[in-house]
């Protein structure tokens, strides 16, 4: 019997290849120059789900993302790789959401799909590195979780059991849990497949009127701009039946008090000449003040 799988993904600014231009002079992040990408570990989570779909006939993979309209790009990337249905959860009322408010909105979206056996997330997103939204969503669904999964060893659809390898400090655990369960996936065990050429041809024009190249924090107005489309479901706050008080800024207990960019202040550096005498002098000093020796 096939499984119903839900994958939660996020579009993020590419912080791993950051350049000097990415930081504005006032210390804020210049998102405009950062390319928007599929969060790397979410791509591994999608791969884990698609791998199960490949081996268990009748399995369905649903992908959900929450974000601005440009996040449609990660949904298209999911369709190109074999997702069966995708949904963008987007509404101005979600703007400013911290991880708690995000997990609430995702929980509502998951409940709209209703039926699931495994929920997949990437271990963490590279813009915040918090690793919080997966466990927070699981708790809201009163669902068991296995985090930091490097590989799914076995899924027994008869007994409804999963065996997963979980990375821990200096080693691993093999954890067995009954379905349903939420997993967060690391980048260790799966190699994300490339897009399928046929699927790219099928879906490349999906919701083209909403796609934007650059990462943008602006949110679509749920009443005016939202257009539904066959391939990509667009869900606003009403579609997922979410309480506005628990969404966006009002549903976010954490506030950013201050942002400082990391600016290097030159220390009292002493340049030491690359000669035996100069290096011996430095070593002598370090021995004299008990730093060395």
């Amino acid at each position, binding site marked *: 019997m096939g499984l119903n799988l839900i994958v939660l993904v996020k579009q993020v600014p590419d912080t791993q290849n950051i350049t000097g231009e990415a930081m504005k002079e006032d210390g804020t992040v210049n998102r405009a120059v950062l390319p928007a990408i599929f969060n790397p570990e979410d791509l591994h989570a999608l791969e884990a789900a698609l791998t199960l779909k490949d081996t268990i006939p009748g399995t369905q993979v649903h992908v959900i993302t929450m974000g601005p309209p440009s996040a449609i790009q990660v949904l298209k990337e999911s369709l190109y790789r074999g997702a069966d249905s995708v949904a963008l959860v987007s509404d101005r009322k979600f703007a400013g959401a911290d991880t708690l408010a995000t997990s609430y909105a995702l929980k509502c979206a998951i409940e709209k799909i209703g039926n699931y056996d495994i929920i997949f997330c990437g271990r963490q997103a590279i813009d915040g590195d918090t690793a*919080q939204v997966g466990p927070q969503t699981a708790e809201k669904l009163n669902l068991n979780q296995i985090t930091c999964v490097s590989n799914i060893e076995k899924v027994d659809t008869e007994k409804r059991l999963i065996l997963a390898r979980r990375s821990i400090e200096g080693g691993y*655990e093999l954890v067995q849990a009954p379905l349903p369960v939420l997993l967060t996936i690391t980048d260790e065990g799966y190699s994300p497949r490339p897009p399928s050429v046929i699927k790219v041809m099928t879906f490349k024009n999906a919701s083209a009127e909403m796609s934007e190249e650059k990462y943008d924090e602006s949110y679509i107005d749920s009443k005016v701009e939202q257009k539904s489309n066959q391939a990509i479901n667009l869900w606003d706050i009403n579609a997922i039946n979410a309480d506005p008080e628990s969404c966006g800024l009002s549903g976010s207990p954490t506030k*950013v008090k201050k*942002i400082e960019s990391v600016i*290097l202040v*030159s*220390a009292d*550096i002493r340049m030491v000449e690359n000669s035996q005498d100069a290096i011996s002098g430095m070593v002598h000093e370090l021995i004299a003040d008990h730093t060395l*020796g």
Partner: protein
Amino acid sequence: MSTKNSVMVFIQQDDGQIAEVSVELLCKAKDLASRVHASVTGVLLGKDVRKSAESLIPYGVDELFIVEDDRLENYTPMPYTKIMVDIIKKIQPQIALYGATTTGRDLAPRITSNLKVGLTADCTDLQIGDYSSKGADYKNILYQIRPAFGGNIIATIVSPEKKPQMATVREGVMKLIEPDPSYKGKITAFKADLTDADFPSVIIERIKQEKTVNLKGAQVIVSGGIGVETKENFQLIIDLAHALGAEVGASRAAVDAGLIPKDHQVGQTGTTVRPKLYIACGISGSVQHRAGMDESARIIAINTDPEAPIFKIAHYGITGDLKDVIPKFIKAFKAKS
């Protein structure tokens, strides 16, 4: 002192061993508690943990809650979340801290999701201060300070309206204080209401390798970066470390390039270190790397590129090829000692 409004620490144990970060957090909790005039509480769950609990009181713990149950020997999320939520509801701490370990990062988000309170991940500093927003003034709020955006910014986060204010804190960033053997604190057994249904996950197998690299305890660290280029050159780093009685470190780029195993990695995604001397060889000094070593008492940078950011935080800089510099360094040390 009443334990209500306390600064609480979740104390992590692995195979009965108390995690070092939990002790670091107790020390920090003592500092924070003195600023907000509160007591320090702890929570320790596991099998036969009373002895370990007693060993922690000298760090200044006023009341330590324990739950002893064989089924809690290894961490799993469901029962731990249930107990922690019950304890927090009962004792109502104003601050609750967790190590930013695999366990802490698995557990803390579930608790905050249940209690609908804020959580900041991977803090590198915690302070107490005031906060004003929309005409409301909040006194003695926890400033939760963490790097974000790949380490390019440092954000100060507050959760002024909801209690407890929760944070996970990186290992190695909070200083240990001397324990006081005469400290008077009490241990309270908390009655947890657990059934077998609270234990859906079963750990079939648990493999942990002994740590062979001790970066955190090292007084001197010699670290190599991508500028080292080859495994043969990396041997020079190892040779210098041996000569100085130092530990071998590495940047993420060197680890990713396969020059050395990951347990040597220093930096944001590796180990945070604060040795007496840190010798950075062929390391440009990305923000991620600096975040893990910039509190070293002395830093020597050896790099061919005089513009490398590492020189901005170094105390001694040598512009040159490490193949040329390191042998001179070894020779100088052997001659002097």
